[in-house]
């Protein structure tokens, strides 16, 4: 392995729609509307905080930067001499430029890529990189439903420095995005687009010394053992997306789709990546066992974000007392407002799910958390 090389990609227009009430900046038309309403770019300033901290700690840092305002500019301002990868964009930058820069950095051997943006940028990164290169998101977008962001630009810098100084494990984190058109019309339709590897440092996700890396892993296998142990013969178990539910399937010796909802009965997968209709059909054939879901890291939704297949009709058919929420203590500690959220699209159901709810946090361990609609 050569010298640690860091990649930097800034989506300069990320976040511009937010301050002027436009909920996002995914299309060129919305961007010009945002500019017309007086929005100013912010992502660059947030990324600059990261770069200044990096330059102060490692003045000779080997850096790949996307051209111009996508990274090169602020890198030079921070007295770093970046190798520029990718061609400068003509006119406004777009998803194509993010994609190309990420691709080029991976090919050039970047060990880690820091990107500043929101969920749209995270999606582009995931599409370009898959799990090839670990990334750290600098929170700078309007929509930040994904779990790939550090808690602040400062925390992003600290995490990057640590990841460059020593080999630390990267773990898959959710990349989520919502349909902006629908969002502007008042409806939220979030989709889980994939996972990006993010370096794992518990103290920078605000749960220092929760027992360290080993205990989070232990909690995950404890959750898996707990739920697998509760399963009864002949009943239908509906496993939502995510690495937590995948651990449960692994404990049962079963495959699991990372993005999909899989149905399990009597120790076998009876449907993978099931639609809501398929789940309802399966519930006609077998008595309900449980729905098992896990909240999205950082933002805390356990229904209505990326798992819409488990809709209100499914939850009602299974029963509220058979809805199991599972999360490691570390994930709960990372929630920005210490609260879990639901958004099933059914206000009555959301109300019924609100209040205090038990969350499975390990083998023989539960935590009572507040749930808000």
């Amino acid at each position, binding site marked *: 392995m050569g010298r640690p090389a860091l990649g930097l990609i800034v989506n300069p227009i990320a976040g511009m729609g937010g301050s002027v009430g436009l909920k996002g900046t995914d299309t060129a038309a919305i961007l010009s509307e945002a500019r017309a309403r007086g929005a100013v770019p912010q992502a660059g300033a947030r990324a600059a905080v990261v770069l200044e901290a990096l330059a102060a700690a490692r003045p000779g840092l080997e850096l790949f930067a996307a051209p111009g305002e996508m990274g090169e500019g602020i890198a030079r301002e921070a007295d770093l001499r970046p190798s520029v990868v990718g061609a400068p964009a003509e006119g406004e930058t777009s998803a194509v430029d993010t994609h190309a820069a990420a691709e080029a950095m991976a090919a050039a051997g970047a060990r880690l890529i820091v990107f500043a943006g929101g969920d749209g940028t995270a999606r582009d990164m995931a599409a370009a990189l898959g799990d090839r290169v670990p990334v750290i998101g600098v929170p700078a977008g309007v929509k930040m439903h994904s779990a790939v962001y550090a808690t602040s630009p*400062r925390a992003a810098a600290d995490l990057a420095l640590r990841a460059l100084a020593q080999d630390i494990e990267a773990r898959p984190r959710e990349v989520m995005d919502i349909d902006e058109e629908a969002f502007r019309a008042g409806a939220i339709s979030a989709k889980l687009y994939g996972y990006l590897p993010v370096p794992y440092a518990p*103290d920078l996700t605000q749960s220092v010394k929760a027992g360290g890396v080993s205990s989070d892993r232990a909690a995950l296998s404890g959750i898996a053992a707990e739920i697998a142990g509760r399963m009864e013969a002949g009943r239908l178990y509906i496993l939502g997306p995510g690495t937590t539910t995948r651990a449960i399937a692994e404990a049962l010796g079963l495959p699991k789709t990372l993005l999909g909802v899989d149905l399990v009965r009597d120790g076998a997968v009876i449907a993978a990546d099931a639609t809501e209709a398929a789940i309802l059909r399966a519930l006609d054939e077998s008595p309900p066992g449980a729905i098992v879901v896990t909240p999205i890291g950082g933002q805390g939704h356990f229904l209505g974000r990326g798992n819409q297949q488990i809709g209100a009709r499914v939850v009602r058919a299974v029963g509220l007392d058979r809805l199991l929420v599972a999360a490691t203590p570390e994930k709960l500690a990372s929630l920005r407002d210490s609260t879990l959220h639901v958004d099933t699209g059914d206000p009555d159901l959301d109300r019924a799910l609100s209040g205090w709810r038990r969350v499975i946090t390990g083998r023989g361990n539960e935590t009572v*958390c507040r749930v808000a609609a």
Partner: protein
Amino acid sequence: MTDRIGGGFHAAHWDEPLIDEIPGDGGRGLLPPKVDDAIADAVGDVPAALPEGVRRAVPPALPSLPQHRVLRHFLRLSQMAMGFDVTVDMMGTCTMKYSPKVHEYVARLPGFADVHPLQDPETLQGTLEILYRFNRVMCEIAGMDAFTFQPASGAQGIYTNACLIRAYHAARGDGGKRDEIITTAFSHPADAATPAVAGFKVITLMPGEMGFAEVDALKAAVSERTAGLMLTNPEDTGQYNPHIRAFVDIVHEAGGLCAYDQANGNPLLGVVRAGDTGFDMCQFNLHKTFSAPHGALGLGCAAVGVKAHLERFLPRPLVTYDGERYGLDYEQGEGIEKIRAFIGNVHAVLKAYAWVRSLGAEGLRAVAETAVLNNNYMLHHIRQIEGTTIPWPKNTYPKLEQVRYSWEPLYEETGVASHDVLNRMVDFGVQHYMESHVPMLVPQPFTLEPGESLTIAEMDHVLGALRRIAEEARNAPEQVTAAPHSAAIRPIDGDVPEDPDCWAFTSRAYRRKRGNWANVKRGLGGHGGGYS
């Protein structure tokens, strides 16, 4: 800072090996005299009389050093350490306070120092009398009916509570059915860990908007499976949960027992009694609130108290008194045989007894009131240090004995984290502070508990150091992040004690694992730092 409190501090640095790695050159501090021939003849060959399984084939590798080298070894280690007796120490959740030295004198009197728990109780009357009397004193302080001092640490005391709950339900035939213990996120982690060890499932209540657990959260947790409630109050945040009476009633109605972890009991002495709040049992750390010295993880003692309906489950033996003579009852009880050998760390009980008797009832209440006043003095001034916040801004109640603060604004502004400030404290001649127990729900936390011993000038010194460090974070952050500069040891990488491949609790483990330490960047064993 050169004031007279922390002024000009610089620790000694010694590259001191483990005691059994110091070359002794054949020196030896003590040579016992040869046994008289008559005795040797009468006793015979002692090693040969031992069963083979306990006989050593190879003699133990005991260190062999002259007395002065042994003394030097421990004095050197003490020179590289801090603590209440050399500096200002307000480590949160630890209740650091002055332990009067006259109690050390009392503890060294031959009648206390030269006794053994297996002596005939007839020859232990003085010691047993103190244990008995202190039991009555603690019952009065806590509103309980009986105490045991057998547990040797706070966690062992909490574990005793978990065992009492288990024994109570087992005796009623509910053992398998009631298997859940409820605790809160800001209680000491032992309130979750020890019931798990005792075989219970553990339900943790997250705090509500005011920073403490809410009644509705408890209602979501209780059921016919509830065995009990185990919590601290005030919690680590220094916040007294105002709903505590309702908590106790709800758990009782559900058929559970309530255990009050009073490790944070300093602000409650003479003010509130666990028994009056409805708790079935409680636990104090004599090495914290009751001034038996707290430090070096040594000679701890937890006092565990119960109401009458649980007395029969206490571990054996209990001290008895028939109106004339004191005795030890090894037959009493059911459920818990033992938590630890014999009757506990008697010297901790002795010092705690001396402390309580020297203060009296009014003095105990004055301890609580002074500790609360000191803490609110600190709170008032820390609020005004730019870069700090007090979590849960909606909660404007005064705090009791400690506060969990946050350096989050300072960190976001400067990149200087709470653990950097912690390390820098040492350069001001102050014991570093405690950040937080787990889980760390407050970002960049720090927890201060000034206690009742400190003077205003001493508290002002700590406040001055915190203010100055916050300024340094803005003007010369490397001064803070490279700290401590004046300590015996440069900053230690937190990963070493967290890594099972590196941590070592015995010299044998240390020798086996120290090769792994080199793989982790850290400052141990290097140059001891200098003035900067």
